[in-house]
C-alpha cells in the first residue's frame, strides 16, 4: 500500500509533516465545571470535567492532594460500523489510565486536598489519533474548569510508513500496522509526560518520528493557548467590571 505518493502527498492530501485541521470549542456541557470539544480532522472528542468536588468514596480521599479520576469511552456511533461495545473493555481501561496519569502530571493536585476531579472523555468520531485528541480535549476542559495546572498537556501522534515519518496519523494510516508514536508534552516546561509506541523502531528513526510528534504537540499547544486566551478574554469582557 502506498501511503505517501512519490509526489509527497498522503492519501488524504496532506504532506508528511502536516497535521489535520484543528478545531476546539469550550463550554459545551452546561452542567460540567469545565468542558470542551476537540477535533483533529474527523476525530472528534468531547471532554467534561467535574470538580474539584467532595470525594464520593471517602476511603479514597487523599489528605494531601486531590484525587483525579478519568473515564474514557467511545460512542457506539463513533466508528464506521455501529458496534455495541461493552463498557470498560481493556482498551478503554488502558486509555482511561493513560489520560488520568497524563493529566495528573500537570494538575497541581496538592492545592486541592481532600477533593476529587473527574474527567470524562468520550470519542464522538474516531478517525485515528483518538488518544491524543482525548488528552487535548481534557486539557482544554481542565483549563476551562479553572483547575490550576503546571502547564497544558498537549499530545500528538506520529508514525512511520513507507520509510517516511508522518505526523498525526488518520485511521487509514493508523491501521496500516506501522509504528505509531503518541507523545504528550508540557510545552512551557519542555517536558515529555507521555510516550507510547507499540512497535519496534530503530533509535535514530524513532528520534526523528518523536521529534516530529513533539513539533505537532507544540503546534497544538499554540492553538490551544489561542483558544483559551480568546475564551478568557471573552468571559472577562462579558462579565464587565
Amino acid at each position, binding site marked *: 500500500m502506498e501511503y505517501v505518493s512519490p509526489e509527497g502527498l498522503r492519501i488524504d492530501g496532506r504532506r508528511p509533516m502536516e497535521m489535520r*485541521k484543528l478545531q476546539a470549542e469550550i463550554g459545551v456541557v452546561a452542567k460540567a465545571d469545565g468542558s470542551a470539544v476537540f477535533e483533529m480532522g474527523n476525530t472528534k472528542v468531547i471532554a467534561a470535567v467535574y470538580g474539584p468536588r467532595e470525594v464520593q468514596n471517602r476511603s479514597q480521599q487523599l489528605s494531601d492532594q486531590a484525587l483525579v479520576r478519568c473515564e474514557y469511552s467511545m460512542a457506539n456511533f463513533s466508528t464506521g460500523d455501529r458496534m455495541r461495545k461493552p463498557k470498560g473493555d481493556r482498551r478503554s481501561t488502558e486509555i482511561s489510565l493513560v489520560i488520568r496519569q497524563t493529566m495528573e502530571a500537570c494538575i497541581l493536585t496538592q492545592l486541592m486536598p481532600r477533593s476529587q476531579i473527574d474527567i470524562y472523555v468520550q470519542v464522538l468520531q474516531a478517525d485515528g489519533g483518538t488518544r491524543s485528541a482525548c488528552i487535548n480535549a481534557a486539557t482544554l476542559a481542565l483549563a476551562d474548569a479553572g483547575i490550576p495546572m503546571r502547564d497544558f498537556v498537549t499530545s500528538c501522534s506520529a508514525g512511520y510508513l513507507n520509510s517516511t515519518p508522518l505526523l498525526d496519523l488518520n485511521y487509514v494510516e493508523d491501521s496500516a500496522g*506501522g509504528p505509531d508514536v503518541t507523545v504528550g508534552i508540557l510545552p512551557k516546561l519542555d517536558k515529555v509526560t507521555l510516550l507510547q509506541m507499540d512497535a519496534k523502531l530503530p533509535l535514530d528513526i524513532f528520534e526523528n518520528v518523536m521529534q516530529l510528534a513533539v513539533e505537532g504537540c507544540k503546534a497544538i499547544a499554540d492553538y490551544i493557548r489561542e483558544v483559551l486566551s480568546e475564551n478568557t478574554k471573552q468571559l472577562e469582557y462579558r462579565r464587565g467590571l
Partner: protein
Amino acid sequence: MLHNKSFVKKTKSGKITKNVREHYLRDDIYCGVTICKVCDSSAARLSGSASSPILVLDTNVVLNQIDLLENPAIDDVVVLSIVLQEVRNRNLGVYNRIRALCSNSARKFFVFSNEHHKDTFVQDMAGESKNDRNDRAIRVAAQWYKSHLGGAAHVLLITNDRENKRKATEEGIPAETIEAYVKSLDRRDLLDLLVRPASEDVNMEEVEDLRPSKRKVIYAEHKPLSEITSGLHQGIYHQGKLRVNRYNPFEAYVGSESIGDEIIIYGRGNMNRAFDGDIVAVELLPQDQWHEENSLSLADEEDEEEGVHLVPGSADDAPRTTNLVQSAAGPPRPSGQVVGIIKRNWHSYCGSLEPMPMPAGDGGVAHALFVSKDRRIPKIRIQTRQLGNLLSKRIVVTVDSWDCLSRYPSGHYVRTIGEIGDRDTESEVVLIENDIDARPFSSQVLACLPPLPWSVSSEDLANPIRQDLRHLLVFSVDPPGCKDIDDALHCAALSNGNFEVGVHIADVTNFVHPSTPLDDEAAQRGTSVYLVERRIDMLPKPLTEDICSLRADVERLAFSVIWEMTPEAEIISTRYTKSIIKSCAALSYIEAQARMDDSRLADPLTTDLRNMNTLAKIMRHRRIERGALTLASAEVKFQIDTETHDPLDIGMYQIREANQMVEEFMLAANVAVAEKILKHYPLCSLLRRHPTPTKEMLEPLLRTAASVGLDLDISTSKALADSLDRAVGEDPYFNKLIRILATRCMTQAVYFCSGDLTLPEYHHYGLAAPLYTHFTSPIRRYADVIVHRLLSASLGIYKLPAIFQDRPQLTSIADNLNYRHRNAQMASRASVELHTLIYFRKRPTDTEARIVKIRSNGFIVFVPKFGIEGPVYLTERSEKGGGEWFVDEQQQKIKRMDGSISYGVLQKVNIHMEVVEPQPNRPKLQLNLV
C-alpha cells in the same frame, strides 16, 4: 499550507460500513512546466513550448498504450493522479511502468496531483458514474492547464474515449485520439507500437475479414463479474490461479482452495482465453466428463509437441503430467472449465512470427501470428507495417485483448531483439523470458563504489571491530577460473590438539550500505545469473571481481566464522568477527584435490587441507546420519571456445572430495550463522527452508522404483536417505539415476522471513537441519548480504537497518529473492539448452540413454552424458493412437501388441541425436531410437 476544505466520502466494502475520509485540497501543487511563471518550478519536468504540445493523458491511453509511452518519442506528458489511481486499480503492471516513467529523470513525465489541487478537484455529482466523474476530472485538469499556461504552451488532451473527446471539444479543450496524435508525429515505427482499440468498428471489420474464422464464436462468453462473485459465494465457481502445463499448453491447472485440490482444465476451449498466471473462476464439469480429454500421448494437437530439454532439477520445473498416468487407476481428478477471468496476467512475450508469405503491396498493414518462446502462451495475432523485416527476427509482443470471436488473442509489436538463431539474440531472449535485468549498472549505482584502486586502509586496520587475521594461512577453493571468490578457509592446529577452523566470507556489506542505489539495485537483481557464456553480476564488476573477491596474495576484508573443533569435529566454540585476511592461495577444486592426493607434498597448506578434509568427512558422515539427503543432479559442463564462444565439448560435472569438503564447511557456517541471527532477531531473520515433500510428490518416484523391484521408505528423510543408499543395482549408474529422480520430486528450498512461519516450519529437509540460511556467497546472492547485516547487527557492530522493522517489506524481499533465484536457475537451464542445441547442430551423435517415463506413443529418455531429457516416439506422429503399442501401467512398460518388444522404465537404450529444422528458423533436437 493546509487548505481546509474537508469533505466526506462514503464507500461500501462487503458489509455496510460507512467510511468517512478527509480530503484536503491544496494550493501548493504546481503545474511542473518550466516556463510557468506562477508556479514553483524547482521540480518542473515539462518543457512546454508553443510548438510541441503538453499532453494530458486519459486513463485508457495509459492502460492500453504503455508501450508507446515508453518510447522516447513521446514526451511532455502530464500524468494526473486520478489516472494513476485508475491505472493502479486496473493493472498493477502498467501502473509500475508508468510510475517508472514518471520517476525517470530522462523523460519529461510529470505527475499532477489533480485530486488534491483546489482548482481541479471535482465533487461527485448525483447520478454520475465513477468513470464519468473521473473523465470529468481529467477534462477539468486539462482545462486548468490550458488556462493556467495561457498562450505559453499548447495543451492537448489525449483520449480514446469518444464521449470524453466529444465533451472535451465542447468545453473548448483541444483533444485528440492517440492514433491521430501519433500520425501527426509522422513516425512509422511508432504506429506499430499502437494498440488497435477493439471498439474501433471500422478497423474491426477489416481485421475480421482477413481471418479465416469469419466472425464465428469460438469461445464461450465470459460471465459478468457480478455473476462470478455470487457464483463464488455459492460455491458453484472456484477461484484460483491458472497454471498452464509447461509441457502441454492444452492442459492447465487451477489450484482451488474451495475444493482443496487442483482442477484440471483440458483444451483451449475449456481454458476459455485464460493465460498462464491469470486469476480465473472455474466451473466444474459433470463428473462423467472428468476423464474425457485425458490422454497419455505426448501431445495431441497439430504442431505442438514436447521438445528435448534439460533434466528438471526439482519438482518445480518437472512436467506435471506424471501423476496422470497413475490416475487411470485412482479416482478421476476434477476437471473444469473457465467461466471468467478475474485478473489478467498479461505481459510482454518473446518469440517470433509464424512464417507467412509477404502480402502484396509491401508497406501496408499486415496481419501476422506471433509464436511465443514460452510454450504456455498461445499464438498472438499482431498487425505490423514492417512484416518483411520482422519475419526472421525475435521480437517482443504484448497482448491487448482476446475477443471471444477470435481464436487467438490480439496484441501489438513492442520491439525487435535480433536475428533468430543468433546466439546473442537467443541469450537475450532467455534473459527477457526470465525477467533478468542484464543492463549495465547505472551511474548512480557506480557512484556508490569506493574509489579504485582499492586496498585495505589503515583505518580498516585500526578499526576495533575488525580482527587482523592476516597471519593465518587462509586459502580458497573454487571452480577453475572463478573470479568472484566469496569464501576462503583456514585450519590451524592448536596446541591442545584441537583445530581452529575458519570460514572467511567476503565482507560485501562493508561496501554495500543499506538504502543506497547500489543496495537497491542488488536487492532488485537478487542474485548473479550464470549463463553458459556469460555471467550477469548482482554487484558491479569492481566489487565482484576485485574489491570483495578474496583473491590470493592481497589483503581483503572478510566476515569470519571461526570454530574450535576437536579432531572428532565436535564444535567446542564458535565466534563471529569481521576480519582482515590475506589469502595465500586461490586453488581450484582440481588443484586442491591433487594436493591432498599427492602423498609427497607435506607443506603447511597441504597439511591444513588434509586436516580439513578429515574433519569435513566426519561432519559429512554425521550429517548423513542425521538424515541429510545426498541428492544428485545432472549438471553438465561446457567447454567454450574462447574466440567464438561456441561450445566445444559437453560433459557431466564431476564432483570431487574437495568440493564436498568446501561444501561441508559452508553448510556449517550457514547453520552457525542461522542460529546466531535467529537468536537475536527471532522475528526478522532471513532463513532458508526446504519443505518436507508430501507423499503425493514422491509418488512417481515410488512407482518407478516399484516397477524395478525397489522398495523405498519415505517416512523420514533419514529413511529415504538410507533406502537410497541401498538402491544399488547391477548398473553402476542406477543409484545416481534414482537419486536424480528423487531430487526432481522435491520442491526447491526457499527464503523466508522468520516471523512469517513457526519454528517447526523452518526445517530444511534436504540438509536435515532445523535452521539454515545463506551466508557464504554475498557477492552473488543478495540473501547473504541481508544475513551479513543481521549478523553484524547481532554482534553489535552496526545498527540493524530500518528495513528489518518492516515485516511485510522483508517478506516481499524474501519473495523477490525466491523469484529471482528461480529465474536465475531457469535462465541457466535455458542457456544450457540453447548451447546444447548449438553443440549438436554440427555433431549428430549416437549415445546411451535411460528411459525415465513411459507414454502411450513412446517414452521419455534421459541422456546422462549430456544431462538432457526428451521424447522418443515409437509410432509416427501421423498415425494417432499408436495401434500396435500398449502401456502396462503396473510394470511401467510399453509393449508391442505382439509382445515382441517391450521397453521398461530405467532401461538402457541407444539413441541417435540430431538437430533438425522442421520449420524454418525453428531448429530442434530430435532423438531417435537406434
